[in-house]
């Protein structure tokens, strides 16, 4: 399988293209062609997943997959499959499959489905593009495309509240995009085209340029931090919760916040190079920022009464683990951050699926309405429990693996205070998740469900239940079988070993 072949050069583009083609096809379909749309959706998702697995195997064998095209002089459009990119691509295509299944069930009989699924596919195309981008310019291209393709999803409901959320979302993300563009352009002006390559770095530049580089780094992190919901830039995330559940799941677990976090990883490792970032003295403040966000998100989550809003604040907190791992100067911390990229995705998507199941099946939105749902919807509740415990970081679930690696990584770097943050965050996570679990499992149902559907199903509609259980199983397996080949941990280690260690 080694060696170069023309197919390999096109494969990254084809992977991005599958969802683009699906998007175009779905846009052109008439609203009532449900069957055909479902076929489109699912076949695109399955084909993409298959291609990504093929590429992943190839990448393990060090096959090069690269698409390259000169856009204007000095700027190329590059899609390339490296281990880190494949990791994120794998996550998005896997979760896309499940989210698509879920969304088909969730939006049954809802209006505007063509529009929804069209933008949905576009959103995934941009996420995969972000993952496979081979240079900062291409990354930015898809990063902005992501903003555009998610806006219609956020405002999908079309209510006054949704429109306001959409406005906030746009204000944040477009502003962030502009700042990011400044950073990217500045860097480009300074050193020309920047391909992602470990250790490519900017070290060889004149040291007099260090302040400029620092400024550019700050611009990049601000631009990416909006999507990653870093502390002062997180405001859009809770308001964007008005979107339908699959969208929230996608926003939180796969696409938007992950794109931001992934971008920060790319900037630190593949643009500046971890050592050079360290020399510039930027890792420490980044770690502080991440820790502040972790704690802030958790604390704010305590006070939320709406289930999805609580989950949203939890996301703010959890995504910063990835940033924290990036900011730890050492292989172990990096593994922790990278692996959380996948773990958080699996766990949070499970939680949002569950929240959607509760809302869709019983009409339950607020936390105090959850009493006794465990008896009515046991399978969903088990999934929710797994997700919640994973978030808390209870072994053997996925979250524990992350915390352990981050903790050890922090100690390797000599930042013992990070342990305190990790533990405090775990405690806070427990403080806002366990009461929910208590209500679900141990309280009797108080009142008739606000809006019950699927009365003849034991739990909920199979289209909704199946993806939920699948992702819950994955998040359990990711922790329980962390030592197995092809587990998230394994991939993260491959990335670090191959790219960032000499």
């Amino acid at each position, binding site marked *: 399988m080694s060696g170069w072949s023309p197919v390999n050069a096109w494969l990254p583009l084809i992977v991005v293209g599958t969802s683009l083609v699906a998007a175009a096809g779905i846009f052109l379909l008439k609203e009532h062609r449900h069957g055909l749309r479902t076929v489109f959706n699912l076949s695109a998702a399955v084909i993409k997943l298959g291609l990504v697995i093929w590429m992943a195997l190839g990448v393990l064998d060090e096959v090069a997959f690269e698409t390259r095209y000169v856009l204007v*002089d000095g700027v190329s459009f590059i899609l390339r499959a490296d281990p880190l990119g494949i990791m994120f691509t794998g996550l998005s295509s896997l979760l896309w499959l499940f989210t698509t299944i879920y969304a088909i069930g969730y939006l049954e009989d809802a*209006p505007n489905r063509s529009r929804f699924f069209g933008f949905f596919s576009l959103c995934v195309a941009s996420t995969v593009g972000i993952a496979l981008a081979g240079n900062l310019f291409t990354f930015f291209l898809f990063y*902005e495309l992501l903003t*555009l393709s998610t806006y219609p999803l956020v405002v999908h409901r079309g209510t006054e509240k949704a429109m306001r959320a959409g406005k906030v979302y746009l204000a944040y993300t477009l502003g962030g995009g502009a700042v990011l*563009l400044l950073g990217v352009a500045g860097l480009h002006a300074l050193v020309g085209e920047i391909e992602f390559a470990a250790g490519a770095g900017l070290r060889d530049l004149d040291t007099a340029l260090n302040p400029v580089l620092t400024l550019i780094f700050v611009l990049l992190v601000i631009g990416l931090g909006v999507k990653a919901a870093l502390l002062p830039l997180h405001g859009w995330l809770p308001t964007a919760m008005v979107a339908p559940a699959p969208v929230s799941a996608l926003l939180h677990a796969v696409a938007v916040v992950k794109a931001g976090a992934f971008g920060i990883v790319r900037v630190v490792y593949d643009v500046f190079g971890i050592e050079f970032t360290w020399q510039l003295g930027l890792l420490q403040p980044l770690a502080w920022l991440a820790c502040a966000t972790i704690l802030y998100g958790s604390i704010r989550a305590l006070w939320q009464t709406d289930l999805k809003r609580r989950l949203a604040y939890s996301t703010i907190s959890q995504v910063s683990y990835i940033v924290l791992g990036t900011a730890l100067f050492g292989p172990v911390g990096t593994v922790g951050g990278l692996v959380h990229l996948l773990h958080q995705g699996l766990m949070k998507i499970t939680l949002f699926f569950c929240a959607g199941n509760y809302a869709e099946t019983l009409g339950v939105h607020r936390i105090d309405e959850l009493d006794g749902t465990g008896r009515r919807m046991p399978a969903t509740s088990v999934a929710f429990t797994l997700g919640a415990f994973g978030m808390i970081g209870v072994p053997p679930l996925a979250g524990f693996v992350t915390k352990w690696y981050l903790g050890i990584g922090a100690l390797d770097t000599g930042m013992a205070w990070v342990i305190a943050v990790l533990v405090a965050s775990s405690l806070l996570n427990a403080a806002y998740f366990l009461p929910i679990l208590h209500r679900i499992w141990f309280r009797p149902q108080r009142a008739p469900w606000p809006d019950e559907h699927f009365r003849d199903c034991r739990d909920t509609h199979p289209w909704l239940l199946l993806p939920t259980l699948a992702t819950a199983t994955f998040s359990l397996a990711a922790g329980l079988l962390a030592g197995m080949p092809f587990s998230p941990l394994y991939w993260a280690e491959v990335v670090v070993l191959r790219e960032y260690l000499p």
Partner: protein
Amino acid sequence: MSGGEALSWLLVVPLLAAIATLLAPGRWRGWGSLAALPLLWLAFTPVLAAFLHQGTLTTPLGGWSPPLGIALIGDGLALGLVGLTLGVFSLCALFAAADPDPEDHSHLWPLAWFLIAALNGIWLSGDVFNLYVGLELLGLAAVGLVALKGSAEALAAAMRYLLAALLGSLAYLIGVALLYAAAGSLALADLAQLDGGDTTVRVALALMAVGLMLKTALFPLHGWLPAAHGGALPAVSALLSALVVKASFIILLRLWLALDADPLAVVAAQAIGLLGAGAVFWGGWMAWRQARLKYLVAYSTVAQIGYLFLFFPLITGTGTDAARLAWDGTLLMLFAHALAKAGMFLAAGNLVRAVGSAQIADLAGVGRFRPLSLLSFGIAGVSIMGLPPSGGFTAKWLLLQSALASGQWPWLIVLMGGGLLSAVYVFKVLRHAFVEGPTRDTFRSPPTAAELAALTLALSSLVLGVAAHGLLALMRPDALSAVLEGAG
């Protein structure tokens, strides 16, 4: 037929078509024009082929050689612009022909053909007086088009437009007179030999610049534009915004490149850049404040014109790299804006027709019934906002790079701020696609061809973002290298 001879057909065909449609009865004009369009493309193809084969083409018209005769020069820039004109006009014509307008607007066709002839004349002219003739013809045709609707509002807009156009042309004409006095020639190539420090030349250039700025509607001389562009028929608005304002800009650009040697040019360029910045912000702000859809789009044109004028500070005295980037960026911006804005006006026309109201607030719920029109508007909006992947973005990227390369970071703020401001007004419209609620349920559907025309224009502004490389390489002129030598 050699490529050089074919060059003149690019003028002759539209003129003939204009006369033919003028003579034809009203109901034949539209379809007759559509039938004439392939002829125009047929004339363009050999020209393009010849250019690709042998480089810049020159034809003395009617066998007279300069200075008395009129020479047509087909360089890369000119041919690119001719191509753009043909493309935009074809789609606008399709739109207008498909439009089942109850009122008779068949005068549109001869006027539009005159407009095309004037535009092609301007793109292909090599001397300043020909440019003047083209400019006047363009202005008259455009005013006629604006007045076409016949309503009081349209007539007032046309009148104002006419006055501004006349004033601008006159200033330009006086400049031509001064230049001729100084150089004894009208050819741009000869003017390049002039000593830039000469007072006569300076005054001439200043007069011409102000006149052209008035015709391009650069802030704060843009007062005539919103009413003229916003009040006209959709196809007319599209032509005006996409092409007509660009004509005077291109003339200014060519003049600037020819008469660039003046040390004061840097100061003047900065001043023009400042006006451009003002246009970006003021136009964006006003666009946001509009209640009527087409006025919003018209103000957006005011803003976008501002970007074009950043060309001057970025190319004057900044060094090879910055100048090359500025050139590429500005031209790409021009192309992207032309395509996107034409698409946007056509889409806006469709939307207005669908809901039967010009107000933005009445668009609520239209997304469910006319998704295609709104999608076209959105796609065009992407380019207007300068978001990737679109021509607008790539152009903005190049301009950013140019500003950074020349160390003029304040222009960054303009580029960024303008982009954000445009997002504000574009989304002011787009959000109505998603609003659900008490809305009308009677929508008139525009013809499919009209929707497709808008979509094609919008999409091509996106494609331009990824296909810019070849186009820019084609248009980068020998003239530029001369400038670069001067600047370097």
